[in-house]
């Protein structure tokens, strides 16, 4: 259940940024989570309410942008969609690839008042 640590990491960022902006609370938070980031979004949703309780995020609307995985083959330069980390290059079958997209785990924006 590392999703709880992740949720509390999000809370910390929100608390810090809200204080910096001299705002009172967050009305909306946008997150970017890649499909290869190792986060179960269901688990994150499950722990969310207890993690944000009594924080600036308590009543904030949460919007999650899921980023699809994209890999690039190191052997033949083909770019391809990745659903799993073990997906190999569909063109040449190589396991050597760079992950271009899908590892994101970011707080994108906060809407504060």
């Amino acid at each position, binding site marked *: 259940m*590392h999703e709880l640590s992740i949720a509390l990491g999000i809370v910390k*960022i929100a608390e810090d940024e809200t204080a910096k902006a001299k705002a*009172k609370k967050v009305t909306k938070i946008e997150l970017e989570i890649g499909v290869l980031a190792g986060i179960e979004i269901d688990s994150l949703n499950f722990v969310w309410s207890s993690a944000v309780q009594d924080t600036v995020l308590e009543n904030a609307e949460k919007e999650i942008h899921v980023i699809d995985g994209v890999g690039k083959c190191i052997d033949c330069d083909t770019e391809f969609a990745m659903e*799993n980390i073990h997906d190999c290059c569909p063109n040449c079958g190589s396991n050597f690839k760079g992950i271009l997209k899908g590892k994101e785990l970011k707080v994108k924006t906060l809407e504060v008042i």
Partner: protein
Amino acid sequence: MCGTCGCGSDNEGPTILKPGEHKHSHEERHHHHGEHSHTHDDDHHHHHDGHSHAHAHSHDHKHKVLEIEQDILNNNALLAARNRGYFEAKHIFALNLVSSPGSGKTSILERTLADLKNEIMFYVIEGDQQTMNDANRIDALQIPVVQINTGKGCHLESDMVYEAVKKLEMKDNSVLMIENVGNLVCPSMFDLGESKRVVIISTTEGEDKPIKYPDMFHTADICIINKIDLLPYVNIDVQKLKEYALKVNPNLEFFEVSATKGDGMEAWYKWLKENLV
């Protein structure tokens, strides 16, 4: 609720102790997330469900959108970088040992320490949810050790290692073994500042574990296959296991060992010594 330990109360954070040290009822590591609770307005109604529209003042023109673009693991990454810099400056080769519970992390560690302690200066950080048992096993070998009990937490984070390292007062040119909490999922996301990550899998586990739990194998540098003395009795195809692991991470290096019988340990020792130079 606390992120590092998952506990409901504020005074049960991770405890970081040397064998023989005593736990105090109020830990030094206080949890800070209660701090901001007083900044809330008194008219805050907890039964309002999710939307700010419930509050009359939320439609005024003071709405501001902050572009944050911050990595959620940034805090952990920063402290991991600090640990790594310290290790590099002191020529400390730091290993993060990860596996499911019961793969033999502690047994491999014990055997390695017992066989090499006259040649290499070792330090150990033990991560478990509860008990000093593993630290006591290492302490019996007269190796400096610190135990981190994560409470309900499922993995070590770089700040816990940072605190533990401060207690160890390590000498230059040594090896630091960090035994993570037994868990093949969560520790993969948390960089501790290690030089190399070592994933351990035993022959009593399924050969498809690397593709079932790809994140751990993807982030590891070394894969130790333990309990090879049991191969005649178990139903596992080691070649297939390696193929799966290489699919996830084609750069993985393998060692096949039996920590209890000693088979294959020499190759692992050779690798350790080469990396110390």
